């Protein structure tokens, strides 16, 4: 078994593809830096990420795949699931080797897996758009906390910037310990210390809140209760569409 080790970046994955062709040796497994190597292997090679190699592979892919497929490739990589790296690697290799586009070959297991993964990642990005709840701070900044299972903040933030272009907001991914701060012009990636109470709990403390914030939260909770029809109570459907893992930061569920 041949193992490639790479630095877990997307450029690293592209470099691995470049190296595989130049070494004429294709991996059976990809291992991210810092992860344990499998118990048995014949050959382990280290891939050193190289912008130029990655760029050449990307340009080659641009000739082989449509724009939608390329964006799907990038989005699916955000799942950050270790076992998925080799699937994506095989997908890209097939794309390079095949004389025709492989995008719609849904009888190929790697194409099916890639399509499924991108659907899951985009689904999670959509759930971020659904379930972020902002709290208004006294200085007018809106603060929202979320814990998505995939690293999708980067593809969800443009939606919030487009929608709330005149507001200042901070959207924070607790699980990965970073967020985006939008100051009314640009969104920048920020990391804040865990000691801050609102980063630790996901909730602004009363003295940090805008004076109307508590009333608004109350109104929303009241509305949430009032809009349900008791005769049709259906908790299973509720949990199905609004997974419990999001409830922690949902205003109406507190």
């Amino acid at each position, binding site marked *: 078994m041949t193992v490639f080790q790479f630095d877990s970046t997307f450029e690293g994955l592209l470099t691995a593809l470049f190296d595989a062709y130049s070494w004429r040796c294709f991996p059976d497994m990809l291992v991210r830096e810092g992860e344990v190597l499998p118990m048995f292997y014949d050959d382990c090679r280290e891939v050193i990420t190289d912008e130029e190699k990655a760029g050449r592979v990307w340009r080659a892919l641009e000739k082989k795949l449509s724009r939608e497929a390329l964006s799907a490739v990038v989005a699916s990589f955000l799942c950050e699931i270790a076992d998925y790296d080799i699937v994506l690697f095989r997908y890209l290799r097939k794309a390079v080797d095949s004389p025709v586009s492989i995008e719609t070959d849904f009888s190929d297991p790697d194409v099916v897996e890639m399509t499924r993964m991108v659907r899951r990642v985009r689904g999670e990005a959509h759930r971020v758009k659904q379930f972020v709840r902002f709290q208004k701070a006294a200085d007018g900044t809106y603060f929202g906390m979320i814990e998505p299972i995939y690293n999708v903040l980067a593809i969800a933030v443009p939606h919030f910037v487009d929608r709330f272009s005149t507001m200042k907001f901070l959207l924070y991914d607790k699980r990965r310990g970073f967020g985006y701060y939008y100051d009314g012009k640009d969104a920048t990636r920020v990391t804040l210390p865990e000691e801050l109470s609102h980063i630790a709990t996901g909730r602004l403390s009363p003295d940090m809140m805008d004076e109307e914030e508590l009333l608004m939260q109350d109104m*929303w909770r009241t509305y949430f209760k009032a809009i349900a029809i008791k005769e049709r109570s259906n908790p299973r*459907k509720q949990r199905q569409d609004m997974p419990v893992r999001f409830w922690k930061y949902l205003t109406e569920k507190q």
Partner: protein
Amino acid sequence: MTEETLRKLKILAESAKYDVSCSSSGTVRRGRKGDGVGNTVGGVGICHSFADDGRCISLLKVMLTNVCMYDCAYCINRRSNDIPRATLSVTELVGITMEFYRRNYIEGLFLSSGVVRNPDYTMERLVRVAQDLRTIHRFNGYIHLKSIPGASQELVNLAGRFADRMSVNIEIPDEGSLKYLAPEKDFKSVYEPMGYIRQGVLENKEDRKRLRHVPRFVPAGQSTQMIVGASPERDRDILRLSSALYATPTMRRVYYSGYVPVNTYDERLPMLKQPPLVRENRLYQADWLMRFYHFTADEIAGDSHPDLELEIDPKLSWALRHPEAFPVDVNRADYEMILRIPGVGVKSATLIVNARRFRRLTSDHLRKIGVVMKRARYFITCGELESACVADVSPEYVRRQLTEPPRKAPKGDNSLQMTLDFGE
């Protein structure tokens, strides 16, 4: 805004909750950089929450007032009901909408109202809310406005400039029953405002061909709602009406609302223990078949079978009535025919016609694609050793295989409760 506003919001949300529609789909509008807030995403829309009844909360669904001069038997807000009444001022409602929207609670506003004084007076106030949101607060999110039956064409035309979607509810699918349950209404009072909206949209389309910058008019079209189970109509009649409505150029959605017995004292209404939720779900499935699966209303529920089966879904029901149409060869059949296989949805049908260009598909491929083989296996061939087809064994056998044994529901779970998807 005060505690008093909160109290009013509670009353008016409770009055609005029986309206089903809540979707925020149908328009794509990018945000305006540095000018107000809001965009609309189109596609499936965004549901921000799901209430305890499992219905999605996408828009702030509320009434401006629940005071009403009409006395419709099926309506909670009828004049003769003794319920708390409230009225929100335009400023209050606009304020709540903006504050909720900024906190990412909602996609926009779905505003309806009881009729006070006269239809025009009421409609004018609804339009005021939309106008203030759009022009003063530069709100660029979704607005769904109810058109009040009997309102003048001028007001509907004004409303259409601010709203993304407008709707007039038919409520009762037959004119005779409607007049019986709501003596002050008839089909004319419903179809007239629908006609105004349609006319507005079509004229706007022509205008926009000539002048690119003419603002859009009700870009997400119109929708309507029918109450199911409050009057004796069969599913056949309901689906025929829906299909006729979908044939008109601006109708995007017909919603079905299982009748919740709200006014139990009224003898014109049937006595129901619980709302007909399964029937409602089957109607939605039938609606889907008409809109996305190329079925006609008569194929789903015709004169020989005027009601949908509650036990199985309408697509399987059609397949069992037509064993001669099967098995379908997934490697050769048209897209239309593949769509008709039970267990194959729009998504898998598209994947199948794409994938079969590369190689012959086997049942293994189909399973990977996401076809529900448990159902589909009675209706397909894919060049392999096949399992019994519905045409060889009897439809009754297939029905038995697919309906029993009933899966044991977990404790405390109502197995009659169907899951409903209100997304578009």
